[in-house]
């Protein structure tokens, strides 16, 4: 399993792997907001956490369709399905690799983009922490969509639309936890813990659903 993790990480940084595409998209989306909204610093810092979260959500969904599609295109998926290790575990490892290669860079880039949005240090920290906790849920949810759409050519947009309803709660609790950190009366912990719970819930359910879909997608 370790070898699968290493191989997926290697693939994502080699040419055509697409690990950087997500970060670039994230930066593009967030960087143009100040130009569109105008130089109203108070407004920017007020909408900052939400914009950074939305940008990260879209960027995280961007590369998800490739999760199993590349494996299917070159026939590797057949061999993965035939092995005796539980498919759920294989899917989980692929999700972890995908998260490390595609979503972790988003978390790392978010403080820089927070500066673009004139966010305070506390807000920047809160967004980074909520992204760190919330983005794995997006990957696990997306894995189900990617597995369902694996045999469809150009399933990319379909995957995003399929998983978007399930990704909305992650966005809601991520953003509300980020706001709670800066706005005094609202407590930070409840939405943050719910976010954590969502991630753990989908860490179990996502790979199960994806494995089931992959088993039935063979043609």
């Amino acid at each position, binding site marked *: 399993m*370790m*070898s*699968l993790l*290493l*191989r997926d990480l*290697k*693939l994502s940084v*080699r*040419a*055509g*792997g697409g690990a950087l595409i997500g970060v670039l998209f994230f930066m593009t989306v967030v960087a143009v907001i100040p130009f569109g909204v105008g130089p109203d610093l108070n407004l920017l810092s007020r909408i900052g956490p939400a914009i950074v979260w939305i940008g990260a959500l879209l960027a995280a969904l961007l590369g998800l369709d490739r999760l199993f599609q590349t494996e299917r*295109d*070159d*026939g*590797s998926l*057949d*061999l*993965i*399905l*035939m*092995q*005796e290790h539980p498919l759920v575990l294989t899917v989980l490892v692929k999700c972890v690799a995908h998260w490390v290669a595609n979503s972790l860079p988003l978390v790392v880039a978010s403080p820089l983009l927070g500066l673009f949005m004139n966010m305070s240090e506390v807000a920047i920290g809160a967004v980074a922490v909520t992204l760190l906790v919330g983005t794995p849920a997006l990957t696990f949810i997306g894995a189900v969509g990617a597995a369902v759409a694996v045999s469809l050519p150009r399933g990319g947009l379909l995957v995003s639309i399929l998983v978007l309803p399930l990704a909305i709660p992650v966005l809601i609790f991520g953003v509300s936890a980020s706001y709670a950190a800066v706005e005094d009366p609202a407590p930070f912990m409840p939405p943050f813990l719910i976010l954590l719970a969502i991630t753990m819930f989908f860490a179990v359910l996502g790979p199960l659903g994806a494995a089931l879909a992959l088993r039935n997608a*063979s*043609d």
Partner: protein
Amino acid sequence: MRLTAEGLAARRGEDLLFSDISFDLGAGEGLILTGRNGSGKSTLLRVIAGLLRAERGAVTWHSSGDGPIRAGEACHYLGHRNAMKAELSVEENLGFWKSFFGDFKGGTGISAAEAADRVGLGGITHLPFGYLSAGQQRRMAFAKLLVSYRPVWILDEPTAALDARAEATFADLIREHLGRGGILLAATHQPLGLEGMRELRMTGFAGVAGEFGA
């Protein structure tokens, strides 16, 4: 060790592509599938590998001591696609599959470098897989069968894109596999240069295949 199939039938679209296929292969035995394009050779192989659900019937693998298990776990499957990543070097590809496959009970695989040597491409394992020619890629995909041990080899058109010498190399490797008690299932148009194989001639659903060909 026995690979048995009983009353297999599989569907392609509305109709049954084949039905009632049964065989029983023991150590050192091979079965060659022949037939026209679209006659169901690849489908049968995928059913045996567990990649397609059979409409009826079952494939089981029996080994001494243990109960029957899913046949796919005892098989190497070499399909039309090579299952190698163009971005990774040959060594990384083979190394990954070696550790991901692990060895089936009763044998061990050889190292990636040795396997490349056995298919006659020893010196180029550092190159990205995508740089190789179609024939070289096929040979490296074949080397994948050597890096980990599986008693059953399922080969779908293994010699497509290969020159005569590579075909002979493959035939040698297959003979060696059978000699060690392995089992072979192959679909092919070219004679593989193997003697004493059983042959299963597939006909497909009569008439419909002809329509597709026209």
